[in-house]
Protein backbone atom coordinates (compact mmCIF):
# COMPACT_ATOMS: atom_id res chain seq x y z
CA UNK A 1 0.00 0.00 0.00
CA UNK A 2 1.53 3.31 -0.97
CA UNK A 3 1.48 6.59 0.87
CA UNK A 4 -1.32 8.06 -1.27
CA UNK A 5 -3.56 5.09 -0.48
CA UNK A 6 -2.82 5.34 3.21
CA UNK A 7 -3.52 9.03 3.13
CA UNK A 8 -6.82 8.33 1.35
CA UNK A 9 -7.86 5.80 4.02
CA UNK A 10 -6.85 8.10 6.86
CA UNK A 11 -8.63 11.06 5.32
CA UNK A 12 -11.91 9.16 4.96
CA UNK A 13 -11.63 7.80 8.50
CA UNK A 14 -10.82 11.27 9.79
CA UNK A 15 -14.00 12.64 8.19
CA UNK A 16 -16.00 9.76 9.63
CA UNK A 17 -14.63 10.53 13.08
CA UNK A 18 -15.72 14.15 12.76
CA UNK A 19 -19.04 12.97 11.38
CA UNK A 20 -19.66 11.08 14.61
CA UNK A 21 -18.00 13.44 17.08
CA UNK A 22 -19.45 16.78 16.01
CA UNK A 23 -23.18 15.91 15.91
CA UNK A 24 -22.86 13.71 19.00
CA UNK A 25 -21.19 16.56 20.91
CA UNK A 26 -23.74 19.11 19.80
CA UNK A 27 -26.72 16.96 20.69
CA UNK A 28 -25.11 15.90 23.97
CA UNK A 29 -24.84 19.60 24.86
CA UNK A 30 -28.39 20.35 23.77
CA UNK A 31 -29.48 17.77 26.35
CA UNK A 32 -26.70 18.07 28.89
CA UNK A 33 -26.55 21.85 29.26
CA UNK A 34 -30.14 22.34 30.45
CA UNK A 35 -29.77 19.25 32.60
CA UNK A 36 -26.63 20.66 34.20
CA UNK A 37 -28.44 23.94 34.83
CA UNK A 38 -31.31 22.05 36.45
CA UNK A 39 -28.89 20.10 38.62
CA UNK A 40 -27.49 23.37 39.91
CA UNK A 41 -30.57 25.52 40.40
CA UNK A 42 -32.71 22.84 42.05
CA UNK A 43 -30.12 22.03 44.71
CA UNK A 44 -31.11 22.64 48.30
CA UNK A 45 -29.07 25.86 48.28
CA UNK A 46 -29.82 26.72 44.66
CA UNK A 47 -31.88 29.58 43.29
CA UNK A 48 -34.94 27.35 42.72
CA UNK A 49 -34.63 24.61 45.32
CA UNK A 50 -36.48 21.35 44.57
CA UNK A 51 -34.37 18.92 46.62
CA UNK A 52 -36.27 15.68 45.87
CA UNK A 53 -36.26 16.31 42.13
CA UNK A 54 -32.58 17.16 42.36
CA UNK A 55 -31.76 13.92 44.13
CA UNK A 56 -33.67 11.80 41.61
CA UNK A 57 -32.14 13.62 38.65
CA UNK A 58 -28.68 13.25 40.11
CA UNK A 59 -29.20 9.52 40.64
CA UNK A 60 -30.39 8.99 37.04
CA UNK A 61 -27.44 10.93 35.69
CA UNK A 62 -25.02 8.92 37.79
CA UNK A 63 -26.59 5.64 36.72
CA UNK A 64 -26.26 6.49 33.03
CA UNK A 65 -22.74 7.67 33.54
CA UNK A 66 -21.63 4.52 35.25
CA UNK A 67 -22.39 2.23 32.27
CA UNK A 68 -19.26 1.74 30.15
CA UNK A 69 -19.70 2.92 26.58
CA UNK A 70 -19.10 -0.44 24.91
CA UNK A 71 -21.80 -2.06 27.03
CA UNK A 72 -24.20 0.81 26.45
CA UNK A 73 -23.55 0.49 22.73
CA UNK A 74 -24.62 -3.16 22.85
CA UNK A 75 -27.53 -2.59 25.22
CA UNK A 76 -28.92 0.17 23.07
CA UNK A 77 -28.88 -1.88 19.85
CA UNK A 78 -32.69 -2.29 19.57
CA UNK A 79 -33.37 1.33 20.53
CA UNK A 80 -30.71 2.58 18.14
CA UNK A 81 -32.36 0.64 15.32
CA UNK A 82 -35.65 2.42 16.01
CA UNK A 83 -34.15 5.87 16.45
CA UNK A 84 -31.51 5.86 13.71
CA UNK A 85 -33.17 3.40 11.31
CA UNK A 86 -30.22 1.03 11.66
CA UNK A 87 -27.99 -0.19 14.46
CA UNK A 88 -24.99 -0.76 12.26
CA UNK A 89 -22.63 1.77 10.69
CA UNK A 90 -20.98 5.08 11.37
CA UNK A 91 -24.15 7.16 11.54
CA UNK A 92 -25.94 4.81 13.93
CA UNK A 93 -23.16 5.21 16.50
CA UNK A 94 -24.14 8.85 17.02
CA UNK A 95 -27.14 7.79 19.09
CA UNK A 96 -25.35 5.70 21.72
CA UNK A 97 -22.61 8.34 21.78
CA UNK A 98 -25.19 10.96 22.73
CA UNK A 99 -26.82 8.76 25.35
CA UNK A 100 -23.48 8.01 26.88
CA UNK A 101 -22.17 11.59 26.72
CA UNK A 102 -25.05 13.81 27.81
CA UNK A 103 -24.99 12.78 31.49
CA UNK A 104 -21.25 13.41 31.43
CA UNK A 105 -21.89 16.82 29.89
CA UNK A 106 -24.55 17.55 32.53
CA UNK A 107 -22.09 16.88 35.34
CA UNK A 108 -19.43 18.94 33.62
CA UNK A 109 -21.81 21.88 33.22
CA UNK A 110 -22.93 21.45 36.81
CA UNK A 111 -19.41 21.67 38.14
CA UNK A 112 -18.76 24.82 36.10
CA UNK A 113 -21.91 26.57 37.26
CA UNK A 114 -21.44 25.62 40.88
CA UNK A 115 -18.22 27.60 40.94
CA UNK A 116 -20.00 30.87 40.22
CA UNK A 117 -19.62 33.14 43.25
CA UNK A 118 -22.69 32.99 45.48
CA UNK A 119 -22.43 36.70 46.14
CA UNK A 120 -22.86 37.51 42.47
CA UNK A 121 -25.99 35.39 42.33
CA UNK A 122 -27.31 37.05 45.47
CA UNK A 123 -26.68 40.46 43.99
CA UNK A 124 -28.73 39.43 40.97
CA UNK A 125 -31.50 38.20 43.25
CA UNK A 126 -31.41 41.43 45.23
CA UNK A 127 -32.00 43.32 41.98
CA UNK A 128 -35.24 41.47 41.34
CA UNK A 129 -34.08 38.98 38.68
CA UNK A 130 -36.25 36.06 37.68
CA UNK A 131 -34.74 32.57 37.82
CA UNK A 132 -34.42 32.50 34.04
CA UNK A 133 -32.66 35.89 34.01
CA UNK A 134 -30.18 34.68 36.59
CA UNK A 135 -29.47 31.56 34.52
CA UNK A 136 -28.84 33.17 31.18
CA UNK A 137 -27.59 36.59 32.23
CA UNK A 138 -25.53 35.65 35.27
CA UNK A 139 -24.77 31.95 35.71
CA UNK A 140 -23.92 31.09 32.12
CA UNK A 141 -21.88 34.22 31.28
CA UNK A 142 -19.98 34.06 34.57
CA UNK A 143 -19.18 30.39 34.05
CA UNK A 144 -18.36 30.76 30.34
CA UNK A 145 -14.58 30.23 30.53
CA UNK A 146 -15.06 27.15 32.66
CA UNK A 147 -17.88 25.90 30.40
CA UNK A 148 -15.60 26.17 27.37
CA UNK A 149 -12.88 24.28 29.17
CA UNK A 150 -15.40 21.61 30.13
CA UNK A 151 -16.64 21.41 26.55
CA UNK A 152 -13.12 20.69 25.32
CA UNK A 153 -12.88 17.83 27.79
CA UNK A 154 -16.31 16.48 26.80
CA UNK A 155 -15.49 16.58 23.10
CA UNK A 156 -12.23 14.72 23.57
CA UNK A 157 -14.07 12.12 25.65
CA UNK A 158 -16.65 11.66 22.90
CA UNK A 159 -13.81 11.45 20.41
CA UNK A 160 -12.26 8.66 22.44
CA UNK A 161 -15.61 6.83 22.51
CA UNK A 162 -15.79 6.93 18.69
CA UNK A 163 -12.78 4.65 18.63
CA UNK A 164 -15.09 1.89 19.82
CA UNK A 165 -17.48 2.42 16.93
CA UNK A 166 -16.02 -0.60 15.14
CA UNK A 167 -17.98 -2.76 17.60
CA UNK A 168 -21.14 -1.59 15.84
CA UNK A 169 -19.65 -1.63 12.38
CA UNK A 170 -18.88 2.07 12.41
CA UNK A 171 -15.94 3.76 10.77
CA UNK A 172 -13.55 6.46 11.85
CA UNK A 173 -9.91 6.55 12.85
CA UNK A 174 -10.40 4.15 15.73
CA UNK A 175 -12.00 1.48 13.58
CA UNK A 176 -9.33 1.94 10.95
CA UNK A 177 -6.60 1.41 13.52
CA UNK A 178 -8.25 -1.69 14.95
CA UNK A 179 -9.72 -3.43 11.91
CA UNK A 180 -7.25 -2.58 9.15
CA UNK A 181 -4.28 -1.96 11.38
CA UNK A 182 -4.45 -4.48 14.18
CA UNK A 183 -6.57 -7.29 12.74
CA UNK A 184 -5.03 -7.20 9.27
CA UNK A 185 -1.59 -6.44 10.62
CA UNK A 186 -1.15 -3.24 8.64
CA UNK A 187 0.78 -1.62 11.47
CA UNK A 188 1.72 1.48 9.47
CA UNK A 189 -1.98 2.29 9.13
CA UNK A 190 -2.54 1.62 12.81
CA UNK A 191 0.22 4.00 13.83
CA UNK A 192 -0.77 6.77 11.45
CA UNK A 193 -4.45 6.54 12.48
CA UNK A 194 -3.47 6.62 16.15
CA UNK A 195 -1.15 9.56 15.66
CA UNK A 196 -3.88 11.51 13.85
CA UNK A 197 -6.24 10.76 16.74
CA UNK A 198 -3.68 11.94 19.27
CA UNK A 199 -3.07 15.14 17.29
CA UNK A 200 -6.82 15.75 17.12
CA UNK A 201 -7.21 15.35 20.88
CA UNK A 202 -4.23 17.64 21.50
CA UNK A 203 -5.62 20.25 19.14
CA UNK A 204 -8.98 20.32 20.90
CA UNK A 205 -7.42 20.39 24.35
CA UNK A 206 -4.96 23.16 23.54
CA UNK A 207 -7.48 25.36 21.77
CA UNK A 208 -9.93 24.80 24.62
CA UNK A 209 -7.36 25.95 27.14
CA UNK A 210 -6.36 28.93 24.99
CA UNK A 211 -9.95 30.02 24.47
CA UNK A 212 -10.70 29.63 28.17
CA UNK A 213 -7.81 31.86 29.08
CA UNK A 214 -8.72 34.44 26.46
CA UNK A 215 -12.34 34.60 27.59
CA UNK A 216 -11.64 34.86 31.29
CA UNK A 217 -11.72 38.46 32.47
CA UNK A 218 -11.06 37.68 36.10
CA UNK A 219 -7.33 37.82 35.67
CA UNK A 220 -5.28 40.93 34.83
Amino acid at each position, binding site marked *: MNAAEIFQLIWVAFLETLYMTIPASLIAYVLGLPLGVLLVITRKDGIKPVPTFNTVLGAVVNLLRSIPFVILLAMLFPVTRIVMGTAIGTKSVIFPLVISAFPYVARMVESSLIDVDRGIIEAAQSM*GSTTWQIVYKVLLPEAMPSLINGAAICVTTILAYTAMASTAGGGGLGSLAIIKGLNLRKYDIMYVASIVLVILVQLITVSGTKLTRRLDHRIR
Partner: protein
Amino acid sequence: MSIETGAPAQIEVVGLRKVFPLSGGGEFAALDDISLKINKGEIYGIIGMSGAGKSTLIRCMNRLETPTDGKILIDGQDVLTMNQKQLNMMRRKMSMIFQQFNLQMQKTVGRNVRYPLEIAGVPKHKANQRVKELLKIVGLEAKEDAYPAQLSGGQKQRVAIARALASNPEVLLCDEATSALDPMTTQSILALLQDINKRLGITVVIITHEMAVIRQVCTRVAILDGGKIAEEGTVDEVFVHTRSAAGKRLFGIIADQENSSDEKLTIPALRIVFDDENAQKPIIATLIRELGVDVNILAADVKRIGEKSYGQMLIAMPEDLESRKKTMDYLKEQGLTVKEVYPQ
Protein backbone atom coordinates in the same frame (compact mmCIF):
# COMPACT_ATOMS: atom_id res chain seq x y z
CA MET B 1 -34.04 65.59 54.24
CA SER B 2 -37.44 66.08 55.70
CA ILE B 3 -38.81 63.36 57.90
CA GLU B 4 -42.51 62.88 57.32
CA THR B 5 -44.41 61.80 60.35
CA GLY B 6 -47.84 60.94 58.98
CA ALA B 7 -46.85 58.89 55.95
CA PRO B 8 -45.86 55.22 56.34
CA ALA B 9 -42.23 54.70 57.23
CA GLN B 10 -39.94 53.66 54.41
CA ILE B 11 -39.07 50.50 56.28
CA GLU B 12 -40.80 49.25 59.37
CA VAL B 13 -39.68 46.13 61.13
CA VAL B 14 -42.00 44.71 63.75
CA GLY B 15 -41.14 41.90 66.14
CA LEU B 16 -38.73 40.31 63.68
CA ARG B 17 -37.28 36.94 64.58
CA LYS B 18 -34.93 34.79 62.57
CA VAL B 19 -34.01 31.34 63.74
CA PHE B 20 -31.39 29.19 62.06
CA PRO B 21 -31.40 25.44 62.60
CA LEU B 22 -28.13 24.26 64.05
CA SER B 23 -26.34 21.42 62.30
CA GLY B 24 -26.17 19.38 65.48
CA GLY B 25 -29.91 19.82 66.08
CA GLY B 26 -31.59 22.63 67.98
CA GLU B 27 -31.80 26.17 66.77
CA PHE B 28 -30.12 29.52 67.05
CA ALA B 29 -31.93 32.85 67.13
CA ALA B 30 -29.85 35.23 65.03
CA LEU B 31 -32.50 37.93 65.45
CA ASP B 32 -34.85 38.19 68.37
CA ASP B 33 -37.81 40.54 68.53
CA ILE B 34 -36.36 43.34 66.44
CA SER B 35 -38.54 46.39 65.90
CA LEU B 36 -37.42 49.56 64.20
CA LYS B 37 -38.62 52.25 61.88
CA ILE B 38 -36.62 53.85 59.11
CA ASN B 39 -37.99 57.08 57.75
CA LYS B 40 -38.01 58.23 54.16
CA GLY B 41 -34.89 60.10 53.14
CA GLU B 42 -32.79 59.36 56.18
CA ILE B 43 -29.48 57.59 56.50
CA TYR B 44 -30.00 54.92 59.08
CA GLY B 45 -27.11 53.06 60.62
CA ILE B 46 -27.10 49.60 62.12
CA ILE B 47 -23.97 48.86 64.09
CA GLY B 48 -22.85 45.85 66.04
CA MET B 49 -20.05 43.42 66.62
CA SER B 50 -19.40 40.51 64.29
CA GLY B 51 -22.16 37.94 64.60
CA ALA B 52 -24.63 40.41 66.09
CA GLY B 53 -27.06 39.70 63.26
CA LYS B 54 -26.60 42.83 61.14
CA SER B 55 -26.40 41.06 57.80
CA THR B 56 -29.28 38.79 58.70
CA LEU B 57 -31.40 41.83 59.54
CA ILE B 58 -30.68 43.73 56.34
CA ARG B 59 -31.11 40.57 54.28
CA CYS B 60 -34.54 40.06 55.80
CA MET B 61 -35.51 43.51 54.57
CA ASN B 62 -35.30 42.49 50.91
CA ARG B 63 -36.07 38.89 51.79
CA LEU B 64 -32.81 37.39 50.73
CA GLU B 65 -33.42 35.74 54.07
CA THR B 66 -36.88 34.61 55.08
CA PRO B 67 -37.80 35.72 58.59
CA THR B 68 -39.12 33.15 61.02
CA ASP B 69 -41.56 35.54 62.61
CA GLY B 70 -42.55 39.19 62.58
CA LYS B 71 -43.39 41.76 59.98
CA ILE B 72 -41.46 43.85 57.51
CA LEU B 73 -43.32 46.72 55.91
CA ILE B 74 -41.76 48.52 53.00
CA ASP B 75 -43.65 51.73 52.38
CA GLY B 76 -46.54 50.14 54.25
CA GLN B 77 -46.50 46.90 52.23
CA ASP B 78 -45.79 43.60 53.91
CA VAL B 79 -42.78 41.93 52.30
CA LEU B 80 -43.62 38.54 53.77
CA THR B 81 -46.95 38.12 52.01
CA MET B 82 -45.58 39.03 48.58
CA ASN B 83 -45.41 36.43 45.83
CA GLN B 84 -42.23 36.08 43.77
CA LYS B 85 -43.36 38.59 41.16
CA GLN B 86 -44.29 41.26 43.69
CA LEU B 87 -41.08 40.54 45.52
CA ASN B 88 -39.05 41.12 42.36
CA MET B 89 -40.82 44.43 41.75
CA MET B 90 -40.19 45.48 45.36
CA ARG B 91 -36.51 44.53 45.07
CA ARG B 92 -36.12 46.82 42.09
CA LYS B 93 -37.09 49.69 44.39
CA MET B 94 -34.70 48.53 47.07
CA SER B 95 -31.13 48.08 45.90
CA MET B 96 -28.30 46.56 47.83
CA ILE B 97 -24.54 46.91 47.85
CA PHE B 98 -22.15 44.46 49.44
CA GLN B 99 -18.80 44.28 51.16
CA GLN B 100 -17.40 42.12 48.35
CA PHE B 101 -19.01 44.29 45.62
CA ASN B 102 -20.42 41.20 43.86
CA LEU B 103 -19.91 42.48 40.35
CA GLN B 104 -20.07 40.14 37.39
CA MET B 105 -16.44 39.52 36.57
CA GLN B 106 -17.02 38.46 32.97
CA LYS B 107 -18.90 41.61 32.03
CA THR B 108 -17.61 45.11 31.49
CA VAL B 109 -18.41 47.90 33.92
CA GLY B 110 -20.98 49.24 31.47
CA ARG B 111 -22.74 45.88 31.15
CA ASN B 112 -22.75 45.39 34.91
CA VAL B 113 -24.50 48.71 35.34
CA ARG B 114 -26.86 47.91 32.49
CA TYR B 115 -27.97 44.62 34.04
CA PRO B 116 -30.84 45.99 36.18
CA LEU B 117 -32.10 47.89 33.13
CA GLU B 118 -31.90 44.76 30.97
CA ILE B 119 -33.95 42.69 33.37
CA ALA B 120 -36.50 45.47 33.64
CA GLY B 121 -36.86 45.47 29.85
CA VAL B 122 -35.55 49.00 29.23
CA PRO B 123 -34.85 49.47 25.49
CA LYS B 124 -31.18 49.16 24.64
CA HIS B 125 -30.46 52.71 23.43
CA LYS B 126 -32.19 54.17 26.48
CA ALA B 127 -30.36 51.79 28.77
CA ASN B 128 -26.99 52.67 27.28
CA GLN B 129 -27.66 56.34 27.76
CA ARG B 130 -28.66 55.77 31.37
CA VAL B 131 -25.52 53.72 32.00
CA LYS B 132 -23.45 56.73 30.96
CA GLU B 133 -25.40 59.00 33.32
CA LEU B 134 -24.99 56.56 36.19
CA LEU B 135 -21.27 56.16 35.62
CA LYS B 136 -21.00 59.92 35.68
CA ILE B 137 -22.73 60.11 39.06
CA VAL B 138 -20.11 57.79 40.53
CA GLY B 139 -17.26 59.41 38.60
CA LEU B 140 -16.31 56.46 36.42
CA GLU B 141 -17.28 57.59 32.91
CA ALA B 142 -13.89 56.55 31.60
CA LYS B 143 -14.19 52.96 32.83
CA GLU B 144 -17.28 51.85 30.93
CA ASP B 145 -15.38 49.27 28.89
CA ALA B 146 -13.07 48.06 31.64
CA TYR B 147 -13.60 44.77 33.45
CA PRO B 148 -14.05 44.73 37.24
CA ALA B 149 -10.74 42.89 37.67
CA GLN B 150 -9.00 45.97 36.30
CA LEU B 151 -10.46 48.27 38.97
CA SER B 152 -9.48 49.13 42.53
CA GLY B 153 -11.75 48.20 45.43
CA GLY B 154 -13.15 51.70 45.70
CA GLN B 155 -13.85 51.82 41.98
CA LYS B 156 -15.57 48.45 42.15
CA GLN B 157 -17.82 49.71 44.92
CA ARG B 158 -18.62 52.77 42.80
CA VAL B 159 -19.66 50.50 39.96
CA ALA B 160 -21.82 48.54 42.40
CA ILE B 161 -23.40 51.80 43.54
CA ALA B 162 -24.07 52.86 39.95
CA ARG B 163 -25.64 49.47 39.32
CA ALA B 164 -27.73 49.80 42.46
CA LEU B 165 -29.00 53.20 41.35
CA ALA B 166 -29.94 52.06 37.85
CA SER B 167 -33.45 51.01 38.79
CA ASN B 168 -34.20 54.37 40.45
CA PRO B 169 -34.58 52.80 43.87
CA GLU B 170 -36.17 54.40 46.91
CA VAL B 171 -33.89 52.56 49.29
CA LEU B 172 -30.23 51.63 49.21
CA LEU B 173 -29.17 48.86 51.57
CA CYS B 174 -25.43 48.78 52.29
CA ASP B 175 -24.03 45.70 53.99
CA GLU B 176 -20.53 46.61 55.18
CA ALA B 177 -20.04 48.54 51.94
CA THR B 178 -16.80 50.11 53.12
CA SER B 179 -15.35 47.32 55.22
CA ALA B 180 -13.08 46.04 52.46
CA LEU B 181 -11.73 49.51 51.71
CA ASP B 182 -8.90 51.61 53.12
CA PRO B 183 -9.77 54.70 55.21
CA MET B 184 -9.33 57.19 52.36
CA THR B 185 -11.50 55.20 50.00
CA THR B 186 -14.03 54.66 52.77
CA GLN B 187 -14.30 58.43 53.11
CA SER B 188 -14.97 58.90 49.42
CA ILE B 189 -17.58 56.14 49.27
CA LEU B 190 -19.34 57.54 52.35
CA ALA B 191 -19.32 60.98 50.79
CA LEU B 192 -20.82 59.51 47.65
CA LEU B 193 -23.57 57.78 49.64
CA GLN B 194 -24.31 61.02 51.45
CA ASP B 195 -24.45 62.88 48.18
CA ILE B 196 -26.81 60.31 46.68
CA ASN B 197 -29.03 60.58 49.73
CA LYS B 198 -29.16 64.36 49.50
CA ARG B 199 -29.47 64.74 45.76
CA LEU B 200 -31.76 61.84 44.94
CA GLY B 201 -33.60 61.61 48.26
CA ILE B 202 -32.85 57.90 48.51
CA THR B 203 -33.22 56.33 51.95
CA VAL B 204 -29.93 54.69 52.89
CA VAL B 205 -29.49 51.87 55.39
CA ILE B 206 -25.89 51.37 56.41
CA ILE B 207 -24.58 48.35 58.20
CA THR B 208 -21.19 48.58 59.74
CA HIS B 209 -19.08 47.64 62.70
CA GLU B 210 -17.23 50.94 62.64
CA MET B 211 -18.51 53.79 64.78
CA ALA B 212 -16.76 56.33 62.58
CA VAL B 213 -18.96 55.39 59.64
CA ILE B 214 -22.09 55.96 61.69
CA ARG B 215 -20.86 59.26 63.07
CA GLN B 216 -19.91 60.55 59.69
CA VAL B 217 -23.07 59.98 57.72
CA CYS B 218 -25.98 58.60 59.71
CA THR B 219 -28.94 60.46 61.11
CA ARG B 220 -30.10 57.67 63.35
CA VAL B 221 -28.57 54.47 64.56
CA ALA B 222 -29.53 51.15 66.10
CA ILE B 223 -27.01 49.16 68.07
CA LEU B 224 -27.46 45.47 67.53
CA ASP B 225 -26.10 43.03 70.08
CA GLY B 226 -26.66 39.30 70.16
CA GLY B 227 -29.66 39.52 67.85
CA LYS B 228 -31.37 42.21 69.88
CA ILE B 229 -31.51 45.98 69.63
CA ALA B 230 -29.47 47.27 72.53
CA GLU B 231 -30.08 50.91 71.86
CA GLU B 232 -31.66 53.09 69.22
CA GLY B 233 -31.95 56.81 68.53
CA THR B 234 -30.37 59.79 66.82
CA VAL B 235 -26.64 59.53 66.41
CA ASP B 236 -26.05 62.48 68.75
CA GLU B 237 -28.23 60.96 71.41
CA VAL B 238 -26.76 57.51 71.24
CA PHE B 239 -23.22 58.74 71.12
CA VAL B 240 -23.43 61.33 73.87
CA HIS B 241 -25.74 59.46 76.23
CA THR B 242 -24.68 55.91 75.60
CA ARG B 243 -26.78 53.68 77.78
CA SER B 244 -26.15 50.12 76.66
CA ALA B 245 -23.10 48.07 77.47
CA ALA B 246 -22.88 47.11 73.80
CA GLY B 247 -22.78 50.77 72.84
CA LYS B 248 -20.06 51.53 75.36
CA ARG B 249 -18.05 48.62 74.10
CA LEU B 250 -18.28 49.94 70.55
CA PHE B 251 -17.14 53.40 71.58
CA GLY B 252 -13.81 52.18 72.85
CA ILE B 253 -11.38 52.66 75.67
CA ILE B 254 -12.98 55.22 77.93
CA ALA B 255 -16.20 53.31 78.14
CA ASP B 256 -14.23 50.20 78.96
CA GLN B 257 -12.52 51.83 81.90
CA GLU B 258 -15.85 53.05 83.10
CA ASN B 259 -17.22 49.56 83.02
CA SER B 260 -14.44 48.01 84.98
CA SER B 261 -14.82 47.02 88.60
CA ASP B 262 -16.56 49.40 90.95
CA GLU B 263 -14.71 48.00 93.94
CA LYS B 264 -12.05 50.64 93.63
CA LEU B 265 -14.18 53.45 94.97
CA THR B 266 -11.33 55.85 95.44
CA ILE B 267 -11.67 59.19 93.77
CA PRO B 268 -14.08 59.38 90.89
CA ALA B 269 -12.84 60.60 87.57
CA LEU B 270 -14.96 62.67 85.24
CA ARG B 271 -16.05 61.52 81.86
CA ILE B 272 -16.71 64.56 79.71
CA VAL B 273 -18.42 64.24 76.40
CA PHE B 274 -18.01 67.04 73.90
CA ASP B 275 -20.19 67.50 70.94
CA ASP B 276 -19.98 69.60 67.85
CA GLU B 277 -20.01 73.12 69.35
CA ASN B 278 -17.89 72.87 72.44
CA ALA B 279 -15.29 70.51 71.05
CA GLN B 280 -13.36 73.55 69.92
CA LYS B 281 -13.50 75.58 73.17
CA PRO B 282 -10.40 75.59 75.38
CA ILE B 283 -12.33 74.16 78.31
CA ILE B 284 -9.51 72.54 80.19
CA ALA B 285 -7.31 75.60 79.88
CA THR B 286 -10.10 77.76 81.25
CA LEU B 287 -10.66 75.32 84.06
CA ILE B 288 -7.06 75.57 85.16
CA ARG B 289 -6.75 79.29 84.69
CA GLU B 290 -10.05 80.57 86.10
CA LEU B 291 -10.92 78.04 88.76
CA GLY B 292 -7.40 77.28 89.76
CA VAL B 293 -7.94 73.52 89.88
CA ASP B 294 -5.35 71.03 88.80
CA VAL B 295 -6.57 68.90 85.97
CA ASN B 296 -4.99 65.62 85.17
CA ILE B 297 -6.08 64.23 81.83
CA LEU B 298 -6.27 60.46 82.00
CA ALA B 299 -7.50 59.76 78.53
CA ALA B 300 -8.80 61.72 75.60
CA ASP B 301 -10.32 60.81 72.34
CA VAL B 302 -11.46 63.69 70.19
CA LYS B 303 -12.52 62.91 66.69
CA ARG B 304 -13.40 65.39 64.04
CA ILE B 305 -14.86 63.50 61.17
CA GLY B 306 -16.72 65.04 58.29
CA GLU B 307 -19.17 67.68 59.34
CA LYS B 308 -19.31 66.82 63.01
CA SER B 309 -16.87 66.40 65.77
CA TYR B 310 -17.23 64.46 68.99
CA GLY B 311 -14.92 63.92 71.83
CA GLN B 312 -14.58 62.16 75.12
CA MET B 313 -12.17 62.99 77.87
CA LEU B 314 -11.46 61.36 81.14
CA ILE B 315 -9.95 63.61 83.78
CA ALA B 316 -8.84 62.86 87.29
CA MET B 317 -10.74 64.84 89.93
CA PRO B 318 -9.09 67.05 92.48
CA GLU B 319 -9.02 65.56 95.96
CA ASP B 320 -10.95 68.18 97.89
CA LEU B 321 -14.69 68.24 97.63
CA GLU B 322 -15.01 71.95 96.98
CA SER B 323 -12.91 72.16 93.85
CA ARG B 324 -14.57 68.97 92.70
CA LYS B 325 -17.95 70.64 92.92
CA LYS B 326 -16.63 73.80 91.28
CA THR B 327 -15.31 71.77 88.40
CA MET B 328 -18.57 69.91 87.93
CA ASP B 329 -20.60 73.09 87.98
CA TYR B 330 -18.33 74.83 85.53
CA LEU B 331 -18.40 71.97 83.05
CA LYS B 332 -22.17 71.69 83.24
CA GLU B 333 -22.46 75.44 82.67
CA GLN B 334 -20.56 74.94 79.47
CA GLY B 335 -23.28 72.57 78.29
CA LEU B 336 -21.13 69.50 78.52
CA THR B 337 -22.30 66.09 79.50
CA VAL B 338 -20.38 65.11 82.60
CA LYS B 339 -20.45 61.90 84.53
CA GLU B 340 -18.52 60.63 87.50
CA VAL B 341 -16.83 57.36 86.78
CA TYR B 342 -14.48 55.10 88.66
CA PRO B 343 -11.39 54.12 86.75
CA GLN B 344 -8.84 51.64 88.08
